[in-house]
């Protein structure tokens, strides 16, 4: 019986031989560039030696982890990751929803299209360019923003060189780049709101504000919650581009995040084992947060995020 079924499956698989041929390059890609690096994680538990390679380097247990946990720069990178993510989320999350709601109210089709086109544009600009523009505009001496501030009688603001102001600059750059793009998902949800509800409320004499509170927001509540959970689940990971390009030696105390720290230790200082261990630590924490967030979403009756 068993062999017969195996034979059946094999015969069925034979029918698909060309499909498997198509999958060869795909699976080869995933094995070489995604799964073999996973094996490479073992160097987090080894004393990696360039000449011995990943396989032959000697095992050292959790010695590498002890070393990174004892380094205060590591904890500072974790703290900075949280702080930057939290600040960016606290500003961009509500702002994105507010902008979506405002865009949704706009009746003029042409005006809406034009403003949307402008708002989406920064999303397509590389971080190198965004950071270049930001450092130019926020500069102490020649920056146009400080020039305007000084004309208003406010002294030059160290947007790029003082810790607190650098976080401000980071958040502004992020919001500028992604706010318009972030509205797409809410605008899609808003077009799905039942039109008859609005009509009924209009007949009942509800004000625009009441409609917002009692119809619009409840209709998109689920997407808001999902987006919030999704964002919170990403608290431990942060793009490398923005902090690396916007940061400078003066604000290292707040701009050095996990990803930039991994880069500096791994690529610049060639401490492969340590860098890998930090990466692994981050991946594991990410997965734990993701699973917890998914559980939480399901527990409060929303769709899971995995």
């Amino acid at each position, binding site marked *: 019986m068993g062999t017969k079924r195996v034979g059946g499956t094999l015969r069925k698989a034979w029918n*698909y031989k*060309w*499909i498997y041929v198509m*999958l060869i390059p*795909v699976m080869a*890609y*995933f094995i*070489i*560039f995604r*799964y*073999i*690096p996973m*094996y*490479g*994680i073992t*160097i987090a538990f080894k004393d990696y030696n360039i000449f011995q390679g990943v396989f032959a380097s000697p095992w050292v247990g959790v010695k590498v982890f002890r070393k990174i946990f004892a380094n205060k720069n590591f904890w500072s990178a974790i703290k900075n990751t949280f702080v930057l993510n939290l600040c960016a989320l606290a500003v961009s999350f509500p702002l994105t929803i507010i902008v979506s709601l*405002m*865009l949704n*109210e*706009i009746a003029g089709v042409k*005006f809406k299209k034009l403003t949307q*086109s*402008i*708002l989406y*544009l920064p999303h*397509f*600009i*590389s*971080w*190198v*360019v965004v*950071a*270049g*523009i*930001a450092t*130019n*505009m926020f500069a102490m*001496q*020649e*920056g*146009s923003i400080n020039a*305007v501030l000084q004309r208003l009688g406010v002294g030059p603001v160290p947007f790029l060189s003082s810790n607190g102001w650098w976080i401000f600059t980071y958040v502004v750059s992020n919001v500028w780049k992604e*706010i*318009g793009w972030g509205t*797409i998902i809410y605008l*899609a949800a808003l077009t799905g709101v039942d039109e008859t509800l609005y009509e009924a409320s209009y007949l009942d004499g509800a*004000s*625009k504000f009441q409609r917002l509170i009692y119809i619009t927001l409840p209709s998109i509540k689920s997407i808001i919650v999902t987006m919030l959970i999704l964002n919170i689940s990403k608290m431990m990971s942060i793009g490398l581009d923005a902090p690396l*390009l916007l940061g400078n030696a003066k604000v290292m105390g707040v701009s050095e995040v996990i990803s930039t720290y*991994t*880069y500096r230790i*791994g*690529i610049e200082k060639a401490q*492969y084992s340590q*860098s*890998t261990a930090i*990466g*692994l630590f981050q*991946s594991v924490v990410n*997965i734990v947060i993701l699973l917890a967030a998914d559980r939480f979403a399901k527990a409060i009756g929303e769709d899971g995020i995995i």
Partner: protein
Amino acid sequence: MKAKTLKFSAGMFIIYILITILAFACLYPFLNVLACSLSGYNPVLSGKVTFYPIDFTIEAYKMILGRKTIWTAMWTTIEITLMGTALSLLLTILAAYALSIRDLPGRKVMTGLILFTMYFGGGMIPTFLVVKGVGLYNTLGALFIPQSISVFNFIVMRTFFRELPDSLTDAARIDGASYMTVLVRIVLPLSIAVIATIGLFYAVGYWNSYFDALIYIQDDAKFTLQLRLRSLLFGNELGSAADDVGGTVVMPQSLKMATVAVSTLPILVVYPWLQKYFVKGVMLGSVKG
């Protein structure tokens, strides 16, 4: 009733004003870049330039476009974008098509292997070691081969292929068409829009990426546009450039902003298409497969 309509339009008016301000805030940095790149030395030095040029000059552009390194970097990036997008599309289409066939033995295992990589990966250094190990270090291949399939794009495309009516492909199969023929003759022509969308996703990604170039490229001659841009904007590469201007004096800021303008232009040229297809792509992606 009358008071009410009046109140409505007052609220509406405020919304229009706020959105206009926001749109201007999004546009302002671009205008500032253009203005700085086209302004004379003194206005830029004193930070007077806002969104229109003062003491108009195109000297900065002359200097930037006269630099060979910019052209080399631009060409390298075009090459990578073209080759990368082609390879990415090919692999993504193959994966999405093959794994959209419902009764393919082993489909679940292979799909699972692919999806797993979204949540867990080797990380920077182990990937770096593999790329080095297969001999891609310091080659342009390192800039697109190791990241040729995005799992997100795979999901979007697979969802799309799955939603094509089975009757079409089944009929062709019964008529004796091979899977390859079905893919090329039936599936692809019906999927132009999604392929364009995902192709643009990949292309913009390659055009804008700089980190891979930062860690994999050593030779100055192989620098990509973003990497060149980084060393022009944040390094001291321009220090020497400012010296070889004969009589005219150009602010380094103007040079930097001219470089930014030149390297962003291609994105702006294709932006109408980008916007149209990207919004579609986001919608497709939000439908989970």
